[in-house]
């Protein structure tokens, strides 16, 4: 048996434990028959039977908690699968079951709930996810209700099968992020899940700045759009997203609105835009509603592809200018757009005293 298969076995075990744990979290049978009152039955002479008056010790059974998992319906279903039974026999499973973190995890009601989910069960078969599930960080994460809610979604299941996602999940920053309700909301979006499978996105998501960004409601809204997903796969954009300034920008509702625009998304993929967006001025600019309106136009997209314009746009003056409604109107003009692409115009723009 391959190691990955064994790992999968371990994952399955986790799943089972989870299911059982949840099932019985609310239904723990704590009654002792001895606790009940026995006051006799009227008219009936109770038989005298010798019984030792020594108090019986409490039974000490280590690891009985895992029975909650093993006797869960889902687990029992899985036990009908020969491969799964093979997995259960593996030393890897035994080792896993001895793992304190795993046992801790297995007791978590939320995780148990998650483990009932068909999608999650499907996910659990992925070797990379199995690997991930062994990490202490994941155990910690799995205690979070929001993450558990997230993990039930089909999209997340798809995502979590990717090896890069597994890599990502090991980062403390991402773990922190994943606990937030917002992330859970975001992760339900199929497009976002599609995005998250890319290696570069994984890299990005490890960045503290991105973590911060991803918690914002605006970004959550933005990230739901298919266009954003497409954008986020772009190497340049991923590079850009690590920049604190961009992070700041991306939190704004206006940016969210803008990002829904296909043209802007197309624009944002360019290396130049990535460069531009790192500047504080541009960030400031992007927050203005006028600029946002402008940026949605095909012309602006076209313009932004020009290196000269990009250079220009980094300047504070341009930022100021761009906030002006008239300028925005002008920018929509095809001729002006052409003009702005020229190096001369760029030079002119830089003459701050011109005004």
């Amino acid at each position: 048996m391959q190691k990955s298969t064994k790992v999968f076995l371990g994952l399955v075990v986790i799943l089972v434990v989870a299911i059982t744990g949840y099932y019985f979290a609310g239904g723990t049978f704590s009654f002792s028959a001895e606790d009940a009152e026995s006051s006799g039955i009227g008219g009936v002479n109770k038989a005298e039977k010798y019984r030792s008056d020594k108090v019986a010790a409490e039974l000490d059974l280590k690891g009985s908690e895992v029975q909650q998992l093993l006797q869960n319906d889902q687990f029992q279903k899985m036990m009908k699968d020969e491969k799964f039974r093979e997995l259960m026999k593996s030393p890897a499973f035994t080792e896993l079951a001895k793992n304190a973190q795993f046992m801790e995890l297995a007791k978590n009601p939320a995780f148990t709930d998650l483990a009932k989910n068909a999608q999650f069960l499907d996910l659990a078969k992925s070797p990379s996810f199995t690997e991930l599930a062994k990490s202490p960080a994941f155990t910690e994460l799995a205690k979070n209700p929001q993450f558990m809610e997230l993990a039930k979604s089909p999209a997340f299941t798809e995502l979590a099968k990717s090896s890069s996602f597994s890599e990502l999940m090991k980062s403390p920053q991402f773990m922190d992020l994943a606990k937030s309700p917002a992330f859970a909301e975001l992760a339900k979006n199929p497009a976002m899940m599609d995005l998250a499978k890319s290696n570069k996105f994984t890299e990005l998501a490890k960045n503290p700045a991105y973590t911060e960004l991803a918690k914002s409601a605006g970004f959550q809204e933005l990230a739901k759009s298919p266009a954003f997903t497409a954008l986020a796969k772009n190497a340049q954009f991923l590079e850009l997203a690590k920049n604190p300034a961009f992070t700041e920008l991306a939190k704004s509702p206006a940016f969210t609105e803008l990002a829904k625009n296909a043209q802007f998304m197309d624009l944002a993929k360019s290396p130049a835009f990535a460069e531009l967006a790192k500047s504080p001025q541009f960030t400031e600019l992007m927050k203005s509603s006028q600029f946002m309106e402008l940026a949605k136009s095909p012309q602006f997209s076209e313009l932004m592809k020009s290196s000269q314009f990009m250079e220009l746009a980094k300047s504070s003056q341009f930022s100021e200018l761009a906030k002006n409604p008239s300028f925005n109107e002008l920018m929509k003009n095809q001729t002006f757009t052409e003009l702005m692409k020229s190096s001369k115009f760029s030079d002119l723009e830089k003459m701050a005293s011109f005004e």
Partner: protein
Amino acid sequence: MIKRLLLLLAFGNSAFAQLKMIETKDMRLAYYDFGHQYVFEHTGRCFHSALKFHKKLFDYSPSEKMTLLIQDFGDYGNGGATAVPKNAISMGLSPFSYTFETSPAGERIFSMMNHELVHVVALDNSSRADRFYHKLFFGKVVPTKENPLTAFYSFLTSPRRYSPRWYHEGIASYLETWMGGGVGLAMGSYDEMVFRARVFNNAHIYSAQGLESEGTTTDFQGKSNSYLYGTRFMGYLSYQHGPQKLIDWVKRKDGSKRSYSSQFKQVFGSSLNQNWSEWIAFERGWQKKNLDSLKKFPLTEAKPITDKKLGSVSYPHYDQKRNKMYVAINYPGKIPYLAAIHLADGKIERLTDIKGAALFYVSSVTYDKESDVLFYTTDNDAWRDLNSYDLKTGKTKRLQKDFRTGDLAFNKKDKSIWGIKHLSGLSSIVRIPFENPDDLTAPYSSTASNKSLLPYGKDIFDIDISPDGKILSAAVSDYKGNQSLLFFDIDSLMQNKIKIDTVFNFEISSPQSFRFTDDGKSLYGSSYWSGVSNIYKVDVLSKDITPMSNATTGLFRPIRIDDEKLFAFNFTSDGFQPVYVNNNKVENVTSIQFLGNITIARHPELKDWELPIPTPQEIDMKSLITNEGKYSPWKQIRINSAYPVVTGYKNFVGVGYTINLGDPLNFREFEISAAYTPTNWLNGLANKSDSTNLTLNSDEQFHLSVSGKIGRYSFSATHNQANFYDLFGPTKTSRKGTNARIEYTKSLLWDAPKKLDLIVGVGGFYGLQKSPFFQQIDTKGFSDSLFVNFDGTLAFSNLRNSLGAVDSEKGLKGSFRSMTATSNGKFYSNILASFDFGFQLPVKHFSVWFRTAAGNSFSEALNPFTRFGFAAFGNNSIDYQAARRYRNIFSFPGLSFIADRSIIARTFEKAMVEFVLPPIRFREMGGLNLYSNWMQATVFSSGLLTHDASTMNNRFVNVGSQLDIKIIIFSLLESTFSVGYANAFDLNENNKQYSEWMFSLKLLR
């Protein structure tokens, strides 16, 4: 039991092949399931605690480390132990069955270890003489039928193994009771009832020998009588003579007698039979006192609905519209079945057989009145299946296989079935919905959803659901033996929550079979609260409990019929009888005395036997463990025993030596045997009609045999194969030449008793003088030929019998074999098929069977593999194979091996009709160490058509009869003496008559 379990291990789920193991100085504890790990240390602690106790009590030094297997092969807990050839214990993890309080509630691993270790100690404890024979034979010898001398060797090495079951179970149950502080059969309410009923019904109380020969076979309680009588007798001895005398009797040390009965006389000063008789007299007196005390208040009249006693019964279900009661019943002579009791006239109507009925609860049954469907469990001693029986169509259907759930209850509100599942030693409340979302055409087919899992130590049983679907009633026990009647809120259970309302703590008396009335306002059930099982009514709202009977023997499983009467089962010495009792409150119920109570009062030293349930503080398993890892059968292989043997080869006598090897769990078994036959050691017993047996060449003097089993594979190899039973004839299996065979067996279907096996084998034969299979087929001229033989067999059987049966009483059996031998580039193929079926006749244990067979060899050439031979009963005068050999395809009683006519065929068809008459039981025939317990006659007739162009075609018929008498030697060694007579008629020769007498003593089982 252990043998069955080990077979399962060897041939069953491959998961068992990888056992995990821990070892301590005294123990090797193996388990195969991760889910059993939680009891691992607790089991180890209980083992060491019990072992320490027994070492001191019995002055016991184990001859070797004990192997302990934790298993979950059945839905109810059980244990098994042996000390021959190795000390081993099998511990079934499931909760016990508390039906009728036949088992007490308590901590079962603790009690099982206490109990099973008594068996090991009783068998393994040894005197100096025993240890001498251990050394001489390299261990403790298992008697094998192939070498009957092993029975003698076995007696020398393990003399106490040859003691009756009541002796072993009696002392184990008695000790278990007091080691558990009074929890056990020695204080059992059911036990008191059994003997009270026998006295009240003026029924026979078996003698020590009668118990073995008849009491454990014709009584509805079957082998549990060994426990009941054994424990009771031990209790009596303890009361009369003190508990230490018991120990002295069982203890096997220097100065003690080999035989349990001789040792009894040495310890108690008088014979076992005499003391047994005194016990019976005491018991009658004791029970009379109890019966008299019950008369202090008016006794409840039980009005029989039928004169019939139904043996064991399930919980009944009342069909008002048909005025019938549906119940599963199990009594001697009839295959257990689901029955309808016609309340108007007491008629018992058979509905359908129950496969795998339990001894006491028979089957768990529930009823959907609206749909006219009964639901019941099968395979009740293994992993239970769920089945339905449609009352309108009479059709049965298996709904779920191995669902491991019983104590069924039907929820009228949503048509769901609820039950108690047993898995890995735990009980859980489960629900099976009517609809399966994945398959709407298959109701009750979805996996049962687990609603509440009870922790280890708490068991739940006897559930019911209120008519409004809001309350689930149940009996719940804990490991301290307390048992309560509880109400569970079903809405909460549906959300996997627990909300419990306690009705009453019955303490150590079990609340049995409490069921809601149709209006849901009350429940009726029973309890031994007064020591006698009486009916109690519980008011659902107030939870008031009202006694409804003052029974003499015991009333069980009540159902309210109307305001006037209740249906119930009254316990009698022949089993449970359907009765009506008045539906009235009784004012007073008195209690009875328990023998155990007066014993401990007279002998308070019994309190010193009490053991606490060991804690980690008392026994630290971690410090005891010396090794942890996998159980490797190869590494555990040791010599089990080695001993001299006598062999028969042709008409000569030889001597040899056999070595047995194996691992403690028998995953690997090997036997090596070598023998030598001097040319002048002629066997005077042999008949001289076969000239090929009269000479012994020098190249035939040495004999070698090697055989082994490795999981599903087995192999054997012989050179000049010899056989002890050839000394007696007329059947000869010794053969000149060398052969080797490898066989692979796979169970394609294992749903006991249904079995379908595939057996594939390949063998090589060289130097053959005769057909390896038919002694009457000489094949001279092939001694220099190498034959390689390939064969494949499909064998199916589904044979059933009833309590007290000595043979299969109904069912099917069939096989198909294809065989191809090759030699010198030529191939010789043949096929063989058989099909038998039988059924019961209206008389108990009386059945008729039809047995058919046909075969064809595809080769006209004559060689050792191309012909079939038919002759004789087939039994040797001293034998080890099946006593009823006339059933074999190639037997033909009437035409003996020495007749002037033999039947050899290339193609044949054969049919037989056989009447198996009811056995006659002997209650007292012989003494304690040699007696006969039954005899049975069969009458048969068969016809045979054969075709062979190279010889001749034949048409034969025969008619014959056989009488078999079972003989028991030293309690354990079964033998069968058979006498048969048959006439055969050659229809092609003017009905020429041949006759044959057969006398045979089949040694060992």
